[in-house]
C-alpha cells in the first residue's frame, strides 16, 4: 500500500468527507457522472483541499450540472455550452491562486466546445479538465456525440456513420502535458488520476468513460457499463504519492523489480508511481502515447490510465509575464496610474 495521507474520519484540515459534498444530485440513478462526482469528493477530502481556494467550472449538459453536486464550499460557475474553457481561462488569469476543476461532457467538449478545448490546452490554462464521456448527448435526450464510435447504434438515431474523435488523442496533439483516460466504474483509478491531475501545473485532461444509463448503456455500446467492466485494460497499477510524503520506493521495487516501476516526478514534489501490468507503456513519450491511442482506436481496445505526461510548460499567466499576486486582488494604487503620469502623457498628445 502506498502511504496514504493518514486518512481516517477527518483529513489534515480536520474536515470530514461529508464536508466536501454538494447538493443532492438530480441525475438519473446509476448515471456514471455521479460516480465521478463521488471520486472528486474523495479526492478533495483526502488531499485536504481548501474549498475556498477551489473553483468549479462547467459547460452545459448532464455532466456539466455536476459541479453543484460536490464541494459546496467552493465557488462554482455553470457557464455556456462548450465555452467553459474561456470562462476558466479568464478566472484563473484573474486569480492565479485558485485551483480550477472543470467538468465537461463529450458533446460539450467534442463538438460545440472543440475550439475552446484546444485553445485552452494551447495556452496551458491551469485546470483539471474532466470530460465525462458517454458517447451521447444526455441532456438533450440521446443524440450521438462526436466521440461515439463508428457503427454504434442508438435507439432513435440509428447507426452512427462517422468515425469517433478521441479527445485524449486531441489533447496530446494539442500540447497538453497531462492526459489520462479512465472509466467511471473504476473508482480507485479515477480517484488516483484526479489526485495526480490536481497536482499538475497546467492543463490536465482526464477523459473518463462515464456510461449514460438512460440513452447509451446497451452492452453492445463501448460506452456502456458492461462493456467497460469487461474490456477495460488498465495500463498500469497506479499510485499517487502526494508531495511531502516520502515514497516507500524499496518496498515496491522488491515487489516489482527494477524497470517495472516508473516514477513520474511532478513539479509540486508529488510522484505518480506506475507499476507495469500487461503491456509496456511509458507515458513520458509523446510518440508512444499517440501510437497507443491510434492502436486502441484501430483495434477497439479500451486502455485506461496515465497516457501522457510531460514536464509542464509555463502557465498562461507566466507567458504573459504577469505579477505574482492575483490580478483580482491588486490595490487601487496598482490599478490606477498617478495624476502626474496622466499629465505627463497628455503633453505627448499636445
Amino acid at each position: 500500500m502506498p502511504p496514504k495521507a493518514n486518512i481516517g474520519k477527518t483529513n489534515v484540515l480536520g474536515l470530514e468527507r461529508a464536508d466536501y459534498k454538494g447538493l443532492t444530485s438530480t441525475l438519473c440513478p446509476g448515471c456514471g457522472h455521479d460516480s465521478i462526482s463521488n471520486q472528486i469528493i474523495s479526492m478533495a477530502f483526502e488531499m485536504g483541499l481548501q474549498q475556498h481556494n477551489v473553483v468549479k467550472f462547467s459547460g452545459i449538459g448532464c455532466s456539466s450540472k455536476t459541479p453543484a453536486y460536490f464541494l459546496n464550499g467552493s465557488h462554482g460557475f455553470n457557464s455556456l455550452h462548450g465555452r467553459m474553457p474561456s470562462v476558466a481561462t479568464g478566472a484563473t488569469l484573474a486569480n492565479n491562486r485558485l485551483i480550477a476543476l472543470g467538468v465537461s461532457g463529450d458533446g460539450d467538449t467534442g463538438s460545440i466546445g472543440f475550439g475552446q478545448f484546444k485553445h485552452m490546452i494551447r495556452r496551458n490554462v491551469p485546470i483539471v479538465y474532466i470530460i465525462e464521456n458517454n458517447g451521447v448527448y444526455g441532456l438533450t435526450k440521446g443524440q450521438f456525440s462526436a466521440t461515439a464510435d463508428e457503427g454504434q447504434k442508438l435507439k432513435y438515431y440509428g447507426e452512427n456513420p462517422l468515425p469517433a474523435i478521441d479527445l485524449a488523442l486531441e489533447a496530446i496533439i494539442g500540447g497538453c502535458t497531462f492526459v489520462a483516460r479512465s472509466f467511471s466504474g473504476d473508482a480507485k483509478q479515477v480517484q488516483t488520476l484526479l489526485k495526480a491531475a490536481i497536482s499538475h501545473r497546467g492543463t490536465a485532461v482526464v477523459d473518463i468513460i462515464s456510461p449514460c444509463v438512460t440513452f447509451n448503456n446497451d452492452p453492445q455500446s463501448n460506452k456502456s457499463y458492461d462493456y467497460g467492466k469487461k474490456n477495460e485494460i488498465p495500463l498500469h497499477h497506479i499510485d499517487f504519492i502526494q508531495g511531502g510524503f516520502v515514497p516507500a520506493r524499496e518496498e515496491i521495487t522488491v515487489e516489482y523489480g527494477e524497470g517495472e516501476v516508473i516514477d513520474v516526478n511532478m513539479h509540486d514534489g508529488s510522484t505518480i508511481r506506475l507499476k507495469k501490468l500487461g503491456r509496456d507503456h511509458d507515458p513520458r513519450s509523446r510518440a508512444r502515447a499517440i501510437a497507443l491511442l491510434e492502436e486502441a482506436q484501430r483495434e477497439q481496445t479500451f486502455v485506461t490510465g496515465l497516457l501522457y505526461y510531460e514536464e509542464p510548460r509555463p502557465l498562461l499567466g507566466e507567458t504573459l509575464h504577469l505579477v505574482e499576486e492575483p490580478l483580482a486582488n491588486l490595490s487601487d494604487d496598482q490599478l490606477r496610474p498617478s495624476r502626474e503620469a496622466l499629465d505627463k502623457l497628455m503633453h505627448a498628445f499636445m
Partner: protein
Amino acid sequence: MCALNVANQVQAGAYSGQPIVNNFTIMAATKNGSGSQTSNNVLVLSLFRMGIPVNGKNLFPSNIKGLPTWYSIRVSKDGYTARRVTTEIAVVFNLDTAAEDINNLPPGGVCLLPAEWKWTQSRQDIVYYELPVKELMAKTDIPSDFRDRIANMVYVGAVAQLFGIPMDVIYKALLDNFNGKEKPTKMNYNVAALAYDWAKDNLQKRDPYRFEPMNKTQGKILISGNEAGALGSLWGGVSIVAWYPITPSTSLVDAVLDYKHLRRDPATNKETVAIVQAEDELSAVGMIIGAGWAGARAMTSTSGPGISLMSEFAGLAYFAEIPCVIWDITRLGPSTGLPTRTSQGDILFAHFLGHGDTRQICLLPGTVEECFEFGWRAFDIAEQFQSPVFVLSDLDLGMNNWMGEPFAYPSQKINHGKRLDKEKLEEFFAKYGEWYRYKDYDGDGVGYRTVPGTDHPRAAFFTRGTGHTEKALYSEKSADWVANMERLHRKMENARDLLPPPMIDYHAGKKIGIISFGTNEPAIAEARDWLAAQGIQTNYLRARALPLAHAVHEFVKQHEQVYVIENNFDGQLCQIIRMEIHDTRHVTALTLGDSLPMTPDWIVKQIVEKK
C-alpha cells in the same frame, strides 16, 4: 461669391482677391498602403501645432494595399470639426480616382497632382498645380524600396509652401510621428523640403487659401477615440483584456499594448495587465466574464460581427450578474458589410443583447474626453451594477484624430460596488445573520457578491444561467423566476439616473428639440448654428447612456417637435424612445446610415424641409 471671383481669374495669374484663411478642407487622394498615412498625420499635427482647429478623417477601403483612400483635413477658425460636403483643395495622387476627384472640386477649387501624368487640364474654373514628383524623387538618395512610400512627402512640402505651414513645424511633427527617431524623420523631411523649395521657385500662387497661425489649440490634445478609450481603461484599472482582431476596434487594444507599461509593477517589472488574443469573440467575452466573476476588471473590444457572437454570453452575464466591459467600435453592416465605414447601427442590438428580457447598460461617448472618462467609469459602473457595460463608440470617433481637452484625472476613487471580502462578509453576517447572493438587501436591486478565493467558509455560491432563488439555488418555480426578473428590472430602472447624464442645452421657449448621441455631436453643433442664423432655434440633448435617463423623457415632453438624429437606417435610438414614452407623435427620426460621418448640411436640410 468668393469662389466665383476665384473661378474667374484662376488661370489669369497671381491671385489678388480676398484670401480665405483657416476655413476650408483639403483632401489627399492616394492609394491604400502607399505610406500616405505619415504625410496626412504630419499635416494634421502641424496645423494643430499652428493653433488652427483641425480634424482629419480617413476614408479608407477594406484593403491592405492598392485601393483608393481619401484623407480629408478640415481647418476651421471657428472650431467646427464635422465632416464637410465640399472639399476646396484636392491632392490628387491616385490616378485611378483622379478624374472623379478633380470633377468633385467646386469652382475655385485647387488641384495638386503629379506632373508626370501630363494630365489634360480641362477645367477652367479650378487651379492646377503640377508637381514633378518623379523628378524630385530622382534627386534624392533614398533607397528604392522606400521611394514609393516617401513620394507622398512631396505633397506635404508643396502644401506647406502653397498654403503656409512653416517647415520647422513639419520637422517637429515628423519627429513626433516617428517617436523621436531621427533617421526616418530626416529621410521624410528631406523630400518635403525639396518639394517646398521647388514650389517656392517654380509655382505662382493662384488661389486664395491660406493657413495662418492662431492660438485656438493651445493646451489642447490631439488623439483618437480608441487611444483615449485605451488610456481610460488603463486608468480605470483594467487588468484583463481578451479580444479578437476586427476593424475598427483593433487600435483600441493596440493602444492598451502601447501604454500598458504605465501599469507595470516597478519593483518586479511585471505586468498588471494581461492581454490575450482569443481564438474568437465567443472566447474573448467568455474570458472577460470569467475574469469579472473572479474579481478582476476585464474588458474586450470588438465591432458588430463580434457583438453578434457575444450575444449568448452577454445574456448570461446580465442574468448571472457579472461585471465586465465590452467596447463596440461600430462599423457598418453584417460581417463584412462596409467594415471600414462608420455607423451607429448597433445601439438597439447591444442594448437588448442576450436571450430576451435583457436591458444592457450602454455608454455612448461622443468625444475623445468621454472615451477616456467612460473608459475608467465603465469598470466602476459594471461593478456597481454587477452587469456587463457596453461602450458604443464608432469608427469615426475611434480611428480618427480629434482635438480635445487634456483628460481629467478620474474624479472618484475606484469603486468595486457591493463586493464582500472576508472582513466585510463577517460584518455582513454579524449584521444580518445571513448572506444570500441575490437577495435585495438595499432595495436597489443589487445584491452583494463575493469572489472566489475569499477565505471564509460561507463565501461560496454557485453561478448559473439557470433559474435561481435569491440564495443562488437552482429553481424552476415561476415565482422565483419572476421575483428575480423584477429585481433585475428594479436594478436597471435605478441605473437610469446613476449613469452618465445626458448633455442638455435647453432654453425654455424653444419649441424644437434635437436628440442624438455619439459622434453626431460636431455636425449637430454646427447645424444648430446655421439653423439659428436662419431663425430656427433649437434645444439639444445628447444621450450618454442606456437605459435612458429620466431627463430624456422630460426633454421629449418639453418640446412641440423633437428630432432624433442618428447615423443608422432605422432610427434605433428613436425606437427606444418610442418604447419608453407614451406619447411620441411629435417625435421624428432623422436617420442617415450612409456609411459616412454626418454633415451639418444634411441635418440643416432635413430640419428645414420638415419645418
